[in-house]
């Protein structure tokens, strides 16, 4: 990249050029393959101890939204929904149940990837050189159409 300041001295084009450059820089991944925009948008997720922060922030938020129920009565058609904390508790229980059921279900239902025998070689009449869905070696890296 040539020195922008050299050409950018012209007072009319200067600002536009700077803006264009910054947009360009924002969309050009650095050497390590990390997109500059990602640093701005999601850089905070790499901070040390972010897990704890999220955990505690969520806990506080949860307590906050549920505490509302104790000061504010609802009038819903289904009576049980009016109990304080119903939505929160039900949401928590359901989520946890669905996830924890993943353990036994996983043992029960998970099979080898080639269980049905269709991940192997191609059948007759199909191009044997065509790539498998599973091991497409990022085939389009060199293709056109990259913005």
């Amino acid at each position, binding site marked *: 990249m040539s020195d922008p300041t050299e050409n950018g001295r012209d007072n009319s084009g200067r600002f536009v050029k700077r803006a264009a450059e910054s947009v360009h820089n924002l969309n050009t991944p650095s050497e390590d393959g990390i997109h500059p925009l990602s640093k701005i948008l999601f850089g905070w997720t790499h901070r040390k101890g972010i897990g704890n922060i999220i955990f505690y922030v969520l806990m506080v938020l949860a307590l906050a939204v549920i505490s509302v129920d104790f000061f504010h009565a609802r009038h819903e058609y289904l009576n049980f929904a009016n109990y304080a904390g119903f939505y929160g508790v039900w949401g928590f229980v359901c989520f946890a149940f669905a996830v924890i059921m993943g353990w036994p279900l996983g043992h029960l239902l998970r099979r080898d990837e080639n269980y049905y025998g269709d991940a192997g070689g191609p059948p007759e009449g199909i191009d044997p050189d065509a790539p498998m869905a599973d091991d497409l070696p990022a085939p389009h890296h060199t293709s056109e159409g990259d*913005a």
Partner: protein
Amino acid sequence: MPSMLAGLNPGWVLIIAGVASLFITMRQARQVVTIAAPLLALLLLVFAPQNMDLVTTQVLGLKMVLYRVDALNFIFSLAFLIAAVLNGIYALHSDDRIQDGAALFYAGAAVAATLAGDLMTLFVFWELTAISSVFLILRAQTRAAYFAAMRYLGVQVLSGVLLLNGLAYVLKSRGDLSLEAFTDLSDPGVLFIFIAFGIKAAFPLLHNWLQDAYPKATVVGSVVLSVYTTKLAVYALARMFPGQEHLVWIGAIMTVFPVFFAVIENDLRRVLSYSINNQVGFMVCGVGIGTPLAINGVAAHAFADIFFKGLLMMSMGAVLYRTGTVKASQLGGLHRSMPWTTLFCIIGAMAISAFPLFSAFVTKSMIISEVATAGYAVIFLMLMFASAGVLEHSGIKIPYYAFFGHDSGLRVKEAPFNMLLAMGIAAFLCIFLGLPALFPGFGHEWLYGLLPYREEAMGYSHHHLFSFDHIITQFQLLIFAIFAFVLLKRFHVYPPEKRGVILDSDWSYRKVGYSLVTWAGTVWGKAGPAMTAAFFRITSRAYNWIEAAFSPRGELARGGVLNGAMTIWTAALLGIVLLLSFMAVG
């Protein structure tokens, strides 16, 4: 608008464009067609007069209404057409005539089926969606996709055959094939139609073609597929079976069971396929309630779903396109290299999870509210469970495992610009549809204004939608569910993603059925040759006999017994006729 254009069915425009683009070899021209045709169709639809039979024809004494717009099918076809535009943009990077043509044709057939004014027309385009969509799966050109496409085609054609069967019954008992809703499921014809619709809507145990086929389609293909077939079925159910109580239960079960499968599924496009199942469950449930507000909810939720599900599919497609895989176990940390995709995916995830200010919040709540109003306590709890489940698999699992979580070390390019553009527009719609009406007709009110029962929708919007209760309860549900995720992760109770396939109801025909066939084949292999030999002996003898009689060397060609003597035949025939005439009169 000129009357000639008014009769032009938007679906047919897409079908013609689809056929045309099969033959357009120039890539730029085809790109223009794939974008311009849906836009033209959109214009035609928007300006089409409503509630009148625009194109009719008569086939074998059966009146077919080929094109009729009303409030219910308008919103569905509008969503289909907007989605067609987005799909066109999303597909711009690929130069594939068959894929472009099949996608347009498929979209067109779905729109034409939606705009059909009678069941026969619906059936015709119903079949066309099945036949055209299979190419989107086949174009992946893998062995797994080939078999999945064949299974998919089989199931879809089965649905068509059942539908046709039902139509024959209905035509006999009711005398017409109008779109008047059915009430009595005990009529065998109606039951056939119900099951036919059920297959396409992926009712429980009839659902597995969806998770089987969609993840194996091409990058663009699964985006296109996720839009049409199931929503067309939802439209058909809303049209023909509103208030059918069985649907409430079927829908509720549909929302619940995919949640468990989605948790353990490793293939993220397959997770989204389960998510389609789950969202369609909400709609089916709403159809079962059948009240105006519920039907509003169905239409609105289908509209919103097309875009947030499409958006999620697009983001996974982009990941597949860049990395070559969508296995959760192999992905992670992609936000470093694909921030835009990550951002759009998160927007889609928030929309599908029904965060306030996102689209599902303003659509799904109508259905759930009507369920509660109708007093279905268990159904209500199931839908709430499903809402938490949606958050789990689509809201958290998809973005977390693809873009965050454990860093897979993959450093790829950001998705192509056209993909980002399509995702951006879809993301815009996901947010726009969920916004409060800052001024009339803005945000969700725009969508509500298109619904079949506008006044009920507006009433709901004013009194309930953005009420404090509604928002706070939704936040309670969501925040506690997210908290549960964080908690489970923290204590390592969350099941890790593992490679492997998850058995589902397709196991019954892919494994048991296949084994049966193999077994039968072995038996046949032993008993067969003997029978075949006998059969061939008999047939060859028969063939020799027929050949001796009919072939150019045979008896008949030589003139039969009386060699070459057609004159004898003539005389004989004359004699017979004379004899008969004389005898008949006596």
